[in-house]
């Protein structure tokens, strides 16, 4: 595969042709915050946290869905980008009811730790406090829309890896919700295989094992790379 050269944060780096800016960054240990991206799933550019500055572009671009190109000049961190990332987190917190203190994923949440990491110490916008429900009709798992940030990892893992496509999205914009089958209770879903991949890849407490209390829900998404390597490269290792 041809190799290209680009500049990231004033350093010349090489990348494989066809890689995204995010993949090129990660190969060179350049840290970028992400929420919707997950290694093994298709890139979506939904959460906007991986926004980077690309010289010549009038706007910031999501690193996960922008292809790294020869001679590109990329800046991953500066005062403006950091400020935008904090604003994105603030809007995410304002949009639903993320009450960390009483969440099953307290202390094990990607949203919570990103807020701390990026220095988002308060939310300047009005909280929307939407009325959202909880579906615990499935025998083993529950979905709490109060904690969902619409990263759609559940939708992608269910479709792309499990092949069931139980999850999808209804509504638009702020009214969007993840749904099972055609917005039927999860427990009544005929397509769900009960595999639990969606729960493990969910970055917050939106999907959880039933019976988990505050701070008890710990997730492990590393299974994804393992099974995909087995499937695609015939390399089976733990």
């Amino acid at each position, binding site marked *: 595969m041809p190799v290209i050269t680009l500049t990231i944060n004033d350093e010349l780096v090489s990348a494989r042709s066809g890689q995204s800016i995010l993949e090129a960054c990660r190969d060179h240990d350049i840290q970028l915050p992400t929420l919707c991206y997950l290694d093994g799933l298709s890139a979506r550019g939904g959460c906007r946290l991986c926004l980077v500055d690309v010289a010549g572009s009038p706007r910031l671009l999501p690193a996960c869905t922008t292809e790294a190109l020869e001679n590109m000049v990329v800046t991953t961190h500066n005062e403006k980008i950091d400020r935008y990332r904090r604003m994105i987190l603030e809007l995410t917190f304002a949009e639903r*009811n993320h009450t*960390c*203190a009483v969440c099953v994923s*307290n202390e094990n949440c990607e949203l919570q730790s990103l807020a*701390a990491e990026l220095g988002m*110490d*308060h939310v300047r916008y009005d*909280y929307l*406090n939407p009325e959202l429900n909880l579906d615990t009709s499935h025998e083993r798992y529950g979905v709490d829309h109060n904690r969902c940030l619409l990263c759609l990892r559940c939708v992608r893992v269910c479709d792309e890896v499990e092949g069931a496509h139980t999850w999808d999205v209804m509504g638009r914009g702020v009214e969007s919700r993840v749904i099972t089958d055609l917005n039927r209770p999860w427990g009544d879903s005929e397509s769900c295989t009960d595999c639990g991949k969606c729960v493990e890849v969910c970055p917050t407490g939106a999907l959880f094992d039933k019976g988990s209390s505050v701070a008890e829900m710990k997730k492990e998404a590393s299974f994804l790379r393992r099974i995909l390597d087995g499937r695609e490269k015939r390399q089976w290792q733990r």
Partner: protein
Amino acid sequence: MSEQQKKIRLATVWLGGCSGCHMSFLDLDERLIDLLEQVELVYGPLVDAKEFPQDVDICLVEGAVTNVENLELARTIRNNSKQVISFGDCAVTGNVTSMRNRIPVKDLLTAVYHEAQAPIGAESLKVLPALLKKALPLHQAVKVDIYLPGCPPAPERIATVVTALLNKQPVELQPEMRTFG
């Protein structure tokens, strides 16, 4: 100037919260002794002052602004204090206190004071301060200088913030010390 006047004037306030942040403040344990050598505690649940005093240097405010009394006190705190600290998640985000925000106030009061089986009934509504439409984080009511998150903030976080303030240094919490929850 007497020794007493030179001390930094510290106030703590309990608005719409559970007092857990104050419990965590007490968990400073022996560090409280050192602290009280440097500060005069002029107001709060731990002292007997009835009115929020003038010329407060540092004020730690626990809890969300959830009723008119909280709002009035928050404004007095802001007017009379040099530095206002949102102390704990309820003050910073609204947290558990704001979980009532999606319920109309009238329905909330009916459910709690008219319909629930409780020793305190509807008669108390005449004397209780009116609830705001929504429980607000402190910074949506008054300007806040420093945010100290946590439910409750661990004593180490409180010590870090208070020590920096007493030494007139910028408050910088490390990422692991600024998580919500």
